């Protein structure tokens, strides 16, 4: 069959229609300095923050198409518009998150309880994985596929990758990550982002490294949108946006109240 587009009129209609079309681009969501969760809008070099969709956030992460939010006592999933989805999970403390390769919510690690939760599309559920077998502090986690979780664990100052089965909690793989140090962020394809000396380092799955010039003092990396990582700094400017595909770093706008 010959491929053909039913095109011209439909395109014009799509562009002109109220919902098509043209919107301000939204990168994702982030936690601002006042611990509110806000959409980050704009493009490289030109950002603005939208209205807060949640307050008192302890941890949050966004893939751009979905977000996970941890407040002081609950954990929940937000859709692309920032609206709650499914049921909340009651839990204390902070959380670390992982998304599927397509950006859907996948896993949440709760350091306080040492539990790993899996999002089933409606609610979180416990997995057999616990802190007991990790023998260290979880720095990051990723969801390479639906059967395993890949942890980055800090053991005596070294980072280790530890993959654990989501079915039985058994250790599938464990390897030292030489030269890498916290803070670090593991991606589903095995890429590791970590802070080197005067640079941010992206170590690919095969060990190849890419250097991103950086003179700050990173304390945390958090996904905040497709292709975007929030780099929280110990020194001003406190919040940078790293675009993974280009390696470009940008200052993220702070709100007036955050500087007072």
């Amino acid at each position, binding site marked *: 069959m010959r*491929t053909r587009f039913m095109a011209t009129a439909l395109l014009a209609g799509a562009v002109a229609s109220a919902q098509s079309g043209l919107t301000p681009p939204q990168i994702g969501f982030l936690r601002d300095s006042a611990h509110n969760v806000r959409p980050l809008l704009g493009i490289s070099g030109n950002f603005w923050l939208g209205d807060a969709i949640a307050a008192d956030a302890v941890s949050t992460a966004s893939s751009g198409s979905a977000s996970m939010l941890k407040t002081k006592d609950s954990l929940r999933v937000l859709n692309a518009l920032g609206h709650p989805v499914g049921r909340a999970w009651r839990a204390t403390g902070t959380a670390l998150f992982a998304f599927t390769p397509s950006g859907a919510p996948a896993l949440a690690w709760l350091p306080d309880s040492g539990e790993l939760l899996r999002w089933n599309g409606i609610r979180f559920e416990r997995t057999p994985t616990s802190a007991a077998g990790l023998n260290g502090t979880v720095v990051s986690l990723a969801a390479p596929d639906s059967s395993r979780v890949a942890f980055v664990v800090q053991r005596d100052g070294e980072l280790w990758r530890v993959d654990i089965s989501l079915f039985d909690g058994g250790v599938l793989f464990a390897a030292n990550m030489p030269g890498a140090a916290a803070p670090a962020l593991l991606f589903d394809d095995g890429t590791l982002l970590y802070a080197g000396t005067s640079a941010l380092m992206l170590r690919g799955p095969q060990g190849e490294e890419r250097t991103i010039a950086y003179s700050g003092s990173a304390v945390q990396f958090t996904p905040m949108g497709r292709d975007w990582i929030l780099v929280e700094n110990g020194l001003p400017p406190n919040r940078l946006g790293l675009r993974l595909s280009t390696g470009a770093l940008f200052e993220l706008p702070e709100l007036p109240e955050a500087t007072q």
Partner: protein
Amino acid sequence: MTARLLLLAAILPLAGLAQLRLSLYDGVTETPIGSSLDVGPATVCGPFTSPYAIRLRNIGQDTIQVTTLEPLSGVISLPGAPLPQFYLAGGALKSLGTIKFAPTSTGSFTSTLTVTGTDLTTSTVYNVSVALTGTSITAPNLTDTSGISYCPGDWIKFERTQVGTTVQTTLTLANPTQSAVTATVAEVTPTVGGTDFGPASPVTVAAGVTQTLQLTFTPSIPNAETGTLTVNGLVYHLAGDGFVPPFPQPTLQLSANANLSSNQAQVSIPLSGAAASTATGQLVLTFQPLGSLADDPNIVFTANSTRTLSVQVNPGDTAVHFQAGDPNQCTFQTGTTAGTIMFTLTIGGITVHTSTPPINKAIVALDLSTAVPATDEIILSLAGFDNTHAASSLAFTFYDTSGKAIAPGLIQSDIAGPFADYYRAHPEAGGVFKLQARFPVTGDITQVAGVDVQFTNPAGPTPTLRLPVQ
């Protein structure tokens, strides 16, 4: 009768005396002088000059011709007094200058201040006299580190001193006398906030002892000030001059990318020299859009998402510092609208302006573009900016896996209306947009391999962008 005449004769001189009156004048108040006046003390090294003026006043109604006024010279004298003869109208006064006591040796000295005048109406002769006494004492030996000796009445001058800092003069005070002497520093005209000369506490130097004396001057305000160092009643004058150096000239420096849309540029503010004092101020950003374009709210400082930043300079700083974000430089977004960004810095009484080179109209720039196949359509997503806010057309051409254009070939769309509506509805976006277009496909969608995209705005068409469909 004889007795009465004698009495009258005795009274006349008394009445004559009363027509001329001598007094001390301190600049504000006249104090009548009695029959005697102590002056000094003084030393051979340094004469004593009274800080008060002597005034002669005619308290009668008739004009008096002053015929005698002395002493005009000598150990105790009035060297500045007017030479007789001169006239003094009724009620008038004459300044006789100040008394100077310049002993040639230690000991006591006396002199008599005498004024004689004749009433031109009654021919009555009036006399007034005051016994002047002064004591010459042994002076302490006061020298500075360069060997200069100071006598009472001399000026000890401090170098010009920046307000808030302290300059010190080291003196050596030798006390050759048989008893302790006390050195006291005072300010002649008190300064708000306390005395600027030091030390604050008296210093005692024992008999026969030589001791270092540290004098200080710490000006709290910018002006010339005088003080005194008094050693056993002998007065040395102190002079200081406080100043505030001019605020160094700030320069607004912009990074080279400040005239490019959708950039984050930096402002730094070096000073022409080190600042001497603390100052605070503001750096204000304003934006003048090109032509009739609307303002762009994303042209802000990233440190606080506003167009005003507080700035500060501390003593010793060679650059202005920012109070939010990076203290050494501030970042601002150049936005996505053509125009000019201007900066005004106000600090230390200085206002400085600068502006970016014009941010000219530019072709549409795409930041993130994707073409994703769905079941029966291609979803095209284009995020970027148009700093003219006036994109007019958009053209697409889809290609198959062999590189051939897919029918109907070039697809053109007039987007002027939709974009104008979008920018009106979303003033918060500046020139930023995300366009999503869906292209229904009939046939095998896997054969669609890529799409060329081309925007046109008043700055011209973009280079054709080939997006893979994936």
